[in-house]
C-alpha cells in the first residue's frame, strides 16, 4: 500500500469525506427503511464506498456516470445532495426525481448522474451512448459506468464493451465485484469471477483487477483510465474486488456464512483508511470523531427534511409521460 503522504492532502480528505458521507447516509437509510418509514425496496452501498469515491474523484461536474439498483453511493460520490436524495427515498416532491421513483431510480442530471437503474446491466449501453455523444459533440467529457459482477454476465456487458472499444469511446467500465448476484454466488455461474478485468482481452482494451477496498488504488487506476479516455485512447475495464456489508436488499435473507461475513467485515475500507491516516499523522482521533458527527448531522437533517416534505399529488403520476 502506498503512503498517503504522496497524495495531495486535499485529495486525501476528500476521499475520506466521500466515503464517510456514503457510510452515514446508508447506515441511516438502512435504519429508517427497516423502521418502515419508506415504501418499496432499497439496496444500500455499505462496504463498497471506496469504489464510487475513488472513481468519481477523477471526474468533473460535467462528466457522466451511470449506475445500478445500488445507486445511492454513486450519486453521493458524484456530488449528490443529501436532501434531494432523502426526499426521493421518502417519495416526496422535494426528491431529485420529484419523489416519483424512489431508491431504485435515483438520478440527478444536473451533476451528470444519469440514473440508478432497475434492470441489471442496462447502464452499460447507456454509458456507451453518453460516450458516443461526447465524440459527436466534440467535448472532453468522460463517462464512468458502475455495475456489479452479476451484471458482467449480461449480454449488454459484452455488446457495450465491444462497441466502446470499436468506437474508441471515453468510457470507464467499473465492476463492483462483491461476488454476489442477489441470492446467487457469482463464482458458481462465472468461472473467471476473480479476474473479470481480463475480460478486456475480448475487446482489445486495457483491463485491471484491483483491490476495491483501497480508495487510493481505485483512484489511481481510474485516474489512468480517465486520462486515456480524455486523450481519445478509448475505454478501460476496471474490476474492483469488494465486500457488501448487508444482504442484497434491506430486509433480504443472506446466503453467506456468518463467519465469512464477520471475517470480511474486519477489513473495512473506511476503518482501514482511518488507521492509515492516523498512522501517517494526517488526522487525529478527535478530528475523526468530529467528522463522523458532522456528516451524521447532515444526514439527519436530510431525513428531517424528507419527513417534512410533501407527498406528490396522485394525479401528478400522469405528468412526464411525454416531453413536449
Amino acid at each position, binding site marked *: 500500500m502506498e503512503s498517503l503522504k504522496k497524495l495531495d492532502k486535499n485529495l486525501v480528505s476528500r476521499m475520506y469525506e466521500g466515503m464517510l458521507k456514503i457510510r452515514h447516509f446508508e447506515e441511516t437509510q438502512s435504519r429508517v427503511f427497516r423502521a418502515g418509514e419508506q415504501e418499496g425496496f432499497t439496496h444500500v452501498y455499505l462496504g463498497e464506498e471506496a469504489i464510487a469515491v475513488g472513481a468519481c474523484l477523477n471526474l468533473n461536474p460535467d462528466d457522466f456516470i451511470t449506475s445500478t439498483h445500488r445507486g445511492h453511493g454513486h450519486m453521493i460520490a458524484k456530488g449528490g445532495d443529501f436532501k434531494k436524495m432523502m426526499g426521493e427515498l421518502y417519495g416526496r416532491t422535494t426528491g431529485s426525481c420529484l419523489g416519483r421513483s424512489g431508491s431504485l431510480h435515483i438520478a440527478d442530471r444536473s451533476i451528470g448522474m444519469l440514473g440508478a437503474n432497475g434492470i441489471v446491466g442496462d447502464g452499460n449501453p447507456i454509458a456507451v451512448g453518453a460516450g458516443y455523444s461526447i465524440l459527436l459533440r466534440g467535448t472532453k467529457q468522460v463517462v464512468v459506468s458502475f455495475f456489479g459482477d452479476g451484471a458482467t454476465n449480461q449480454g449488454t456487458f459484452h455488446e457495450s464493451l465491444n462497441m466502446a472499444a470499436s468506437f474508441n469511446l471515453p468510457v470507464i467500465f467499473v465492476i463492483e465485484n462483491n461476488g454476489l448476484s*442477489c441470492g*446467487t454466488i457469482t463464482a458458481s455461474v462465472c468461472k473467471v469471477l476473480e479476474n473479470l478485468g481480463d475480460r478486456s482481452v475480448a475487446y482489445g482494451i486495457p483491463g485491471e483487477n484491483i483491490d476495491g477496498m483501497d480508495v487510493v488504488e481505485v483512484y489511481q487506476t481510474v485516474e489512468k483510465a480517465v486520462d486515456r479516455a480524455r486523450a481519445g485512447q478509448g475505454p478501460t475495464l476496471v474490476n474492483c474486488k469488494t465486500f457488501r456489508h448487508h444482504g442484497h436488499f434491506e430486509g433480504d435473507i443472506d446466503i453467506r456464512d456468518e463467519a465469512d461475513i464477520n471475517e470480511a467485515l474486519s477489513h473495512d475500507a473506511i476503518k482501514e483508511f482511518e488507521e492509515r491516516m492516523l498512522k501517517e499523522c494526517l488526522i487525529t482521533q478527535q478530528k475523526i470523531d468530529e467528522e463522523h458527527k458532522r456528516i451524521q448531522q447532515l444526514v439527519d437533517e436530510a431525513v428531517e427534511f424528507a419527513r417534512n416534505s410533501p407527498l406528490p399529488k396522485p394525479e401528478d403520476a400522469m405528468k412526464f409521460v411525454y416531453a413536449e
Partner: protein
Amino acid sequence: MREIMHRDALREAIAEEMRKDEHLFLMAYDVGKYGGEHRISGNLYEMFGDLRVKDAPISEQGIVGCCIGAAITGCRSIVEIPFMDFMPLCMDMIVNQAAKLYHMFGGQMNVPMVILTAAGGYIRAAQQHSQCFEAWVAHVPGLKTVMPSTPYDAKGLMKTAINDPNPVVFIEHKKLLPMKGEVPEEEYEIPFGQADIKREGTDATIVATSYTVHLALQAADNLQKKGISVEVVDPRTLVPLDKATILESVKKTTKLVIVHDAHVTGGFGGEIAAIVADEAFGYLDAPIKRVGAKWTPIPFPSVMEDYVLPGLDDIEAAVREVVG
C-alpha cells in the same frame, strides 16, 4: 381443506412433477440455495440437487435459450423470470425460437417448457418492476398464456403447464404469491382453456384476470349491497381462451366490464372486448367498459401508484355506468 399460499402451491406442483420426470429441471438466478426471488423454489434445491434446480447467471436470453435447447433434445424445464419487466430481455428467445420451432421445422421438434414470471404492481416497486406484458405474449401463436388467480388454480394449471408439450408462459402476480387459498392434498390438473366463473350474477359480467379477480369479487360484493348482481368470469388462460364461457355470460347479463392490472391501451382487454363486440354484438345492452392502468409508467409512491392502477372505485364505477 388446508389453505396454502400461491408460492407454495406452485412449488408443490413443480415438486410433484419433478419427482415423476428426472429430466425436468428448474433454472434461473437465485432458485438454488437462496430459494427463489419470490421464494417459489424454496427447498427444491435441497430436494433435487444442483443439476435440477440450477442457479444461473443473470443472462435472460441465455437461460431461456438453454431451456429451449434442452427441450428439443429430450428434457423439460421451468425457467423463472422473476419480474415480468425482465421478460423484454428474452422475448426474442421466447417469440422467435420457443414459439416458432415446432411450426418452422414441420413438427420435428416441439418445445416443452414453462416460463414462470410475476407481473403487476401495487407493491411500490416503481417503473421497472411493476409491468404486465400478458398482451404481448397472447399475440404470439405457438405460446400459451396462463394467469391464475387462486392457489388452487395456480397448482392445477402449473401441473398442466409442465405436462404441456409447448412453451407456456405462466404469469403470476406479486400480490398473489403470498395470498392463501384452499388446495387439496391430492394431485389434480386444470385443463387450459376453461374459464372459471368465480361468482355468478345477472346484471353485468366482469371479466377479470390474475390479482384483479380479487378486486372484482370485492367490487361485486359492494355492488350486491346496492342491488347490482355481478358475474365474475376468470379466464385463467388467455391462450387458449374460453370464449364460450365469456360469450355465454355476456349473453345472459348483456353488459360487460373488463378488468386487468395492465395498461388499458393495447391490453388484452381489447381482445376480449373485440371478441364480444363481434360474436355477442346482438346481445349487448351497453357500451363495453375496460378498467386497467392509466396511460403512464407505474410510479413508486403508493399515493401515485394507487391512482394509476385500477382500484375498487374504478371497477364499481364502470359497472354502475353499464348497468345505467
